[in-house]
């Protein structure tokens, strides 16, 4: 059974255009993915593609002007706002991007512990800091005093300490050099091996592949492919979607081939396949039909020509 299942999720924002008419802009559409216990699923895609919103939608912390549709299941149970509110911080935990997500005026240790924490929790927090190689003095520091690497481990501690069985990490390795990023991701692997499910949202496909079981490739607000991590190999022959292949081949250690063109903005998506304007394999059909997600070779793909 899947720990988390997201089916056909869409997130739109209402905003006012120049004529003061209310307009809806769909930032995420038709997104589906699932995670089993003990699995790491990486959601990869370039920055600014609305990936963070996926995390916020699952946690139920979207801003007030956002409208969500589709279904999110947790442990076999459909999530509604109420259910999300009870699970937040207990069953589901978020590991945010940066130290800006910590209260600037609260000491780190106090902040990592859940409000109203008892002595047991304080002890747990100390153990956890030790496990992550944080000196005992760190709990007395304020967020601005943390180095980048320390901040990562502190943020990770918040999720670990909560005992949540689903951890959503939103871009957990921004600006970290390779070694530090790897170390952070290994901590996630440890957590997954303890039986937790981890959703790793990142633009760093290379680091993500070192720990992930499954990869969901995210493009222009939707998933275009779900593949096993092993499928990312060679020149991407086993990948199903042209975008995944292009993303893979754009990496420096592969062919370092940039993808021509730019990702379409939300609200300005092409009529047919979202990737059609940039796709080397596009045919006339591609700009007319919106491809659905379909099963292919043990993965999923959103492309009419994939085989």
């Amino acid at each position, binding site marked *: 059974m899947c720990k988390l299942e997201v089916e056909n999720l869409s997130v739109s924002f209402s905003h006012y255009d120049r004529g003061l008419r209310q307009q809806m802009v769909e930032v995420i559409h038709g997104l589906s993915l699932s995670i089993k216990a003990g699995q790491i699923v990486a959601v990869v895609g370039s920055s600014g593609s609305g990936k963070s919103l996926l995390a916020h939608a699952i946690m139920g912390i979207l801003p007030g002007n956002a409208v969500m549709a589709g279904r999110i299941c947790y442990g076999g149970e459909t999530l509604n706002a109420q259910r999300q509110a009870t699970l*937040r*911080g207990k069953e589901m935990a978020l590991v*945010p991007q*940066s130290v800006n*997500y910590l209260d600037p*005026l609260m000491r780190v240790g106090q902040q990592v512990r859940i*409000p109203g924490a008892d002595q047991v929790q304080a002890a747990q927090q100390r153990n956890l800091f030790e496990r992550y190689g944080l000196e005992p003095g760190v709990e007395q520091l304020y967020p*601005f005093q943390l180095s980048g690497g320390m901040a990562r481990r502190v943020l990770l501690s918040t999720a670990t300490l909560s005992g949540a069985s689903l951890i959503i990490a939103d871009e957990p390795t921004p600006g970290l050099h390779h070694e530090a990023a790897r170390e952070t991701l290994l901590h996630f692997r440890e957590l997954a091996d303890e039986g937790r499910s981890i959703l790793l949202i990142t633009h760093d496909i290379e680091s993500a592949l070192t720990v992930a079981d499954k990869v969901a490739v995210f493009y222009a607000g939707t998933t275009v492919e779900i593949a096993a991590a092993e499928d990312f190999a060679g020149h991407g022959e086993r990948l199903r979607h042209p975008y995944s292949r292009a993303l893979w081949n754009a990496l420096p250690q592969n062919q370092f081939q940039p993808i021509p063109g730019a990702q379409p903005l939300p609200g300005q998506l092409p009529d047919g396949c979202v990737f059609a304007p940039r796709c080397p394999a596009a045919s006339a059909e591609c700009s007319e039909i919106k491809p659905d997600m379909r099963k292919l070779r043990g993965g999923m793909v959103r492309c009419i020509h994939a085989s």
Partner: protein
Amino acid sequence: MIRKLLAFLGFKAVRLASLMFAISLISFMLVQNSPIDPVQAYVGADAVRVSPEQRAQIAAYWGLEKPPLERFVIWSSALLQGDMGTSMIYRQPVEEVIGERFLNSAALMGVSWLLSGIIGFIAGVVAAMKKDTWIDRCIQWYCYTLASTPAFWLGLLLLMIFAVWLGWFPVGLGVPAGVLADEVTMADRIRHLILPALTLSVVGISNIALHTRQKLVDVLESDYVLFARARGETGFRLFWRHGLRNIALPAVSLQFASFSELFGGAVLAEQVFSYPGLGQAAVDAGLRGDVPLLLGIVLFSALFVFTGNLIADLLYRFIDPRIRKAGVR
């Protein structure tokens, strides 16, 4: 830490000294060039019965016939020795007049400072927590309306309603008229204080409320509050743990930094309510050309405002960990 504090205070002391010098020089020049003839003002209604010789004597008594520069030097060197001179209208040493008047003003300003601070802060918090609801709109409307209401006008309004029509409070003065000084009770003083203090605080609320509202709105939209919500914190507990912590210090600092508005408001309110405070003395001194008293009050009020700003500064510097610790690590 201590050394940093001392260095900071030393720097501020130099600032204060130069500020005081500049202020006394400028006010002295202003008074010098004002159209009010101090002798005339001193003599008042008896003018016709005072001969030119007597006038000259009066002028000589106050040292008014000497050239301005010399007078400034005499006055300021006396000041440096702690002698602020004698008030012409009260015939008392200036420091005594200021001390006595300031006690009254301090009660008035203190009460309204606390009231406006507490009420304004709470109003700001409520507005931000209920952003875009009718409560928020009411509070904002109130603040913007009051921000453009002159204190004296509001004072007159309150006087008319509560003192004249309803008769709940005395019309003016600091103590009941015609009662011996030692028979004046605390209750009397409080009754006389309520209306002016109310006037002053009602006007002071809007500043702090709007500021607090904006701060809290920003805090509530911040990444760290989003994260706190993701961790399951909600409602009042969220406000208590993250909101209050991040808005209290700016609010308290703002309240200290508003000493100048407070003093300015007090001058007007005291005038309307004939409340015997420092502000009223300042107006009298100005209108009747009581140079020593006027200069004394000007210097004193500058010191008062400076102290408020200094406290606001100190609060940030030595309480906010981001500034306090920035140099240490």
